[in-house]
């Protein structure tokens, strides 16, 4: 969106048939993703439970939702061949490590320019924040809010959220565990959407190459930003929300 408006200022862009078809395709895929029930698919592939799940503690496969007795931990899932775990392995360590890396990259991602528009030989580097400010300056404040939220606020929410989870588990805090669970779900769901900026940027850099007239070049900030998005996704994926509930059980 931001990219589109920025290009509009230097060139006229018309969406052709292929573009419309692609948009339709993406939208349909999104719909399918939304309406499909994975359990139905997996149940069609094989039985949803291992023998011996009737008695005692059970665990489930993280990939296909197969139910197995806790003794099967470490073995491979008979249905999807993923390793079965009681909890995600080294969840806290991995989340902490990836989160810390993301935190570090968050700094240059916001301080360094993410792209540079070379217009008529005039260099115009832009950081995320300067982009937001520019949008505000030309009165596109709804867009400014979107960019500000998606590129600055959400990564920050993800990082602070994960930190909160880790600290809470470490200290054995059980209060507001419901709120934390909801936040985790939100983080998991929104995670990949932050990367849309990176994808747009890559398209922009490839498309806007009008020689000396206008050129868009990616800057180191973009790499850092992509790193932040990918690392926070991996961190939230490595995190096991059930650990928070384990503390509740411990307390009980």
């Amino acid at each position, binding site marked *: 969106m931001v990219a589109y408006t920025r290009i509009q200022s230097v060139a006229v862009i018309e969406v052709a048939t292929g573009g419309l078809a692609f948009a339709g395709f993406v939208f349909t895929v999104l719909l399918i993703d939304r309406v499909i029930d994975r359990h139905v698919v997996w149940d069609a592939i094989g039985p949803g439970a291992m023998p011996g799940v009737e008695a005692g503690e059970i665990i489930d496969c993280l990939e296909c939702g197969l139910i197995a007795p806790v003794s099967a931990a*470490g073995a491979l899932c008979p249905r999807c061949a993923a390793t079965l775990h009681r909890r995600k*392995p*080294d969840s806290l*360590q*991995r989340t902490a*490590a*990836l989160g*810390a*890396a*993301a935190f*570090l*990259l968050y*700094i*240059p991602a916001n*301080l*360094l320019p993410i792209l540079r528009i070379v*217009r*008529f*030989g*005039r*260099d*115009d580097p832009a950081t995320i924040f*300067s982009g937001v400010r520019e949008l505000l300056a030309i009165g596109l404040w709804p867009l400014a809010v979107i960019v500000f939220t998606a590129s600055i606020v959400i990564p920050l929410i993800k990082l602070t959220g994960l930190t909160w989870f880790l600290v809470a588990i470490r200290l054995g805090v059980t209060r507001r565990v419901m709120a934390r669970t909801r936040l985790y779900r939100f983080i998991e769901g929104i995670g990949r959407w932050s990367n849309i900026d990176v994808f747009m940027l890559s398209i922009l850099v490839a498309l806007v190459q009008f020689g000396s007239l206008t050129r868009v070049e990616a800057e*180191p900030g973009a790499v*850092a930003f992509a*790193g932040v998005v990918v*690392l926070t996704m991996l961190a939230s994926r490595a995190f096991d929300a059930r650990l928070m509930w384990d503390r509740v059980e411990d307390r009980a």
Partner: protein
Amino acid sequence: MSEDSEVHIRRSRIVMLVWLVPVAAFLAVAWIGYRTFASRGPVITITFLSGDGLEAGHTKLRHRNVDIGTVKSVVLSRDMSHVEVTATLEHQVGDRATVNSRFWIVRPRLSAASITGLSTLVSGAYIEMDPGQPGQATEHFIGLEDPPVVDMEDVPGSHFILHAEDLASLDRGSPLYFRGIKVGEVLGYTLSQDTEHADIFIYVRTPYDRLVRADTHFWNVSGFSVSAGATGLRASTRSLEALVAGGVAFSTPDAAMAEPVSEKGAEFRLFNDQETADQQPVGPVLTVSYLAYFPGTVQGLQPGAAVDLLGMRIGQVTDVHLDFNASDGSLRAPVTFAIDPKLLPIAVGQSESSAETVNHMMDRLVAQGLRARLASGSLLTGQRLVNLDFIPDTPEAAIAYGAPVPQIPTVGSTDLDTLSASANQLMSKLANLPLAEIGTGLHNIVAHIDQATAGPEIARSIKALDRSLANLDAIASQANKEVGPTLASLHRTADAADQTLEAAQRLMGSGGDRSRDLPALVHELTDTARSVRVLTDYLDQHPEALVLGRAGAAK
């Protein structure tokens, strides 16, 4: 248990690997941070009168078209009298921002000679930095409003300073020509300290700067010049570029090529045209000045007009002005002219004594009748010049040596202007004559004659005359018959006379000195000429004498 611990060890290794990610991230961030920090140069402040075209965060600082910094903020000063521009310089040029550095804003400049900064039309203005010589580092600068007269390091050459009375149409970038080849340009100009001249800074490219010697003459070839001098009308232009943008040309006389090459920054005079420049002497200018009071008007005589000796140019008029003597109420126009001793056929040393040598020569010439007079240089333009010539039979005169310059004796001019003025006076006198009364008088006389001829005496006289003529006719026809023999005898007589003369010549041939008579003859002729001149001079001043006779005689 052993299996468990093995699994545990393997897991802890994986965990260790996971922690490599933040370590790598930290290293990357630290490196980027270091690079950003290290490449950051000093923050400088530049003040300009106007922030036209400057944008915070976008406008660049450049040197030789390479970005060396970025403008961070453009704000008004507290008293709102100027604009303060804050900019960060890049690390590698940070230490070159010294007290010698200069900054100016590059905007599109369209002058007749060139179009510069065209790229800034689309890319916007930028601030050019000229680092200058290394020196004391500073952070506050005062920006130049106009691009400075830069010492172009990338184009080898020399700069010189020209002093001109008038800038004319010269401008920054006006071309400089040597024999029509563009060898440099005008870098800029300024008014001299004493406001007497325009100081013009020029730049001559190598190797042409070697052509500039102490006696190189510079002149203005700006525009289209029409000059009307004693030699007539001249129109010239150097090139289309010079026509539009003005220009300077220079030449170095052969004699001046022996002089050493001029130092950079040497100062020269800029002449208005090539003619004036060419007339400048080579070598030290040492002239001898004389003063002359010409009778009558000095109209058409200007400073710079030629001074001729027997038609050869030997100097020029330096000053003409009016002089009123309050004690006796006389008004005169003293003309000062300078003679260049080098143009005189005498050996003159380069010393103060040369004036004496010239004075001595002039003394002798004046004693022989040399006088200064005004002459017409050009009938077309009315230009006049000072002519030094021998005037025969002038009253004795000598050079008057008084302060400040010697005064040379003069005679009135006899040129066309004076003649036409006399003719004018004559015409006005004629116009005042009582022509109508004279006409009436004449008419009366004719009427009287008419009456007289109408009488019978006249008729008788005519008849008598008729008879006399008839008689005369008869005598003539008789004489006619005798004319032939008479003529033949006359021939013989003439031949005899010839022989007699020849004999006389032979007689006088040895000791005869007929040439003794010649000076007397010439003297008489001269006397005659003088009388004629006296007459014309008298008529000149008293044309009425033509009609009324000499004033003295009348009274």
